[in-house]
């Protein structure tokens, strides 16, 4: 009960802060919209026909997952802001489990990311209607739980990286190196096939890859595009994601608490 209390309290604080930060809300919607609108349209016109499936939907499912993963991951950096603003002291001197604090933080940033996700989904529905895509309501709704899983994985991945970051400036320099390669390793914009062996090896350890593939696996489940687009079975992706989440959460929290106390 006490841990649940902590998790909800910490998560709600993040959600509340997001809802009061209008510039952040606007900015967080614009980037994925631009990507889907321009990049998706452009790729669809250039290589979409050759692929034999609706490329805008392919890009949409990729960008949707990548946005959620990345938003939750970057949201975890706000722990650095809390440290710089000295607010983290107030949280970390309270008599609650460190794991509960971190889980609350990841949950909070996941909820923040999901508010973006819901907006993106609405946008996706509009695209589907315009392009006359054959998409069912259940397909659209299936993106919500897998999107949430992507958030949790992204948040825990951010937690794994966070302990070694000394400041927001360092985080801003490091995170692009951790995020941008994953766009390609996860096949966010283009299909991930016929890659050199070392790229394949890197893709195996890329957390975003499993999140993107799970989204597409669930979205394209039962359609003829499934075998052409999805890399692994959804269950396998889900299991790997859960394993990674647990591993990142435990090791990230241990490292973070140790770094904070053993300065």
């Amino acid at each position, binding site marked *: 009960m006490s841990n649940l209390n902590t998790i909800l309290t910490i998560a709600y604080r993040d959600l509340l802060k997001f809802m009061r930060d209008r510039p952040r809300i606007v900015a967080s919607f614009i980037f994925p919209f631009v990507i889907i609108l321009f990049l998706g349209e452009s790729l669809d016109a250039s290589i979409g026909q050759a692929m034999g499936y609706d490329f805008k939907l392919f890009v949409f499912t990729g960008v949707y997952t990548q946005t959620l993963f990345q938003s939750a991951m970057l949201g975890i950096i706000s722990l650095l802001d809390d440290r710089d603003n000295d607010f983290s002291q107030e949280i970390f001197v309270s008599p609650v489990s460190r794991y509960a604090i971190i889980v609350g933080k990841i949950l909070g940033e996941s909820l923040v990311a999901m508010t973006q996700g819901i907006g993106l989904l609405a946008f996706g529905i509009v695209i589907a209607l315009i392009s006359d895509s054959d998409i069912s309501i259940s397909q659209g709704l299936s993106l919500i739980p897998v999107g949430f899983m992507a958030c949790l994985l992204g948040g825990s991945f951010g937690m794994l990286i966070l302990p070694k970051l000394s400041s927001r400036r360092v985080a801003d320099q490091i995170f692009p190196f951790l995020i941008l390669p994953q766009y390609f390793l996860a096949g966010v914009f283009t299909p991930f096939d016929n890659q050199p062996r070392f790229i394949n090896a890197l893709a195996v350890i890329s957390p975003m890859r499993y999140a993107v593939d799970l989204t597409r696996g669930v979205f394209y489940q039962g359609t003829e595009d499934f075998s052409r687009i999805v890399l692994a079975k959804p269950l396998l992706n889900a299991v790997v994601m859960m394993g990674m989440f647990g591993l990142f959460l435990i090791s990230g929290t241990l490292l973070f608490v140790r770094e904070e106390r053993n*300065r």
Partner: protein
Amino acid sequence: MPPSIEVQHLVKRYKQSERNAVDDVSFTVEPGQLFALLGPNGAGKTTLVSILTTTLTPTSGRASILGLDVATQASQVRREVGIIFQNPSLDLNLTAEENIRLHATLYGLYSFRPTYASMPEAYRQEVIRLADIIGLGGDIFRPVKQFSGGMKRKLEIIRSLIHTPKVLFLDEPTIGLDPASRRNLWEYLTTVRNGNGMTVFLTTHYLEEAEQSDMICIINHGKVAAYGTPDAIRTQLAAQAYLLVDAADREGLRAELKQANLPFEETPKFKISLANQNAHQIIQRIKTPLSLVKTYIPTLEDAYLSIVGAANE
């Protein structure tokens, strides 16, 4: 009953540092005492507070709060202490009430509720009471970023007391506050202390704040330079107390002092040490009409500067 705070041979050396930030420090704080930790910037005060409040692990030595070890029983220690950090630790994006609610739920006083209206009646009454004490009234529902420095400090103190800690740590609580806010804040703290007999551990640069304390510990370069009551620490400088006299008839006064065997120094006024005698006795022995009589008794600030200065030499 165990001491409120017990520190034994505590050492802290930060990573990549070549010297100890806290170096073999020992002291005890009894229940109900106001304990002042003094020292120049970088002396190790905040490091010591961080260790005692469990946010930093010591390199060696032992520290306990109410008999609970800060290293191995950190969670239990956290339940017993309240902390006002050197830098404000409020969430400026939240309202004052939301900051209090966050603290209250993290300390397990109430279950999480997303809004003030959904919180139990007892909590809502407590918040209104606290808002009156702090002088905020309805402003308690406004974002903290709109508050003055003094208001933020007071809010932090109220927040830190809401779980009724047995030991309150104040790490330079009045830094950056104007004199009126400082006085106001101390009046409030004194009222709280008198009401619940809480132990207060204070670090400060303001010596007049330390004057009120029961015990003082002065640290410099991480080491204890002096430890005792304010009077005991001042007494260390008793030899520096003197009487300053002068007269229109300076020749007569000089001769009289020599005749009375009272050692003096001309600065150019006549400076007589009070190390072994009091001012009244000396004045009684002087018959020459005096134009100036002034005593100088070292203050805690003099003692502090002398102790820290001597340690630096």
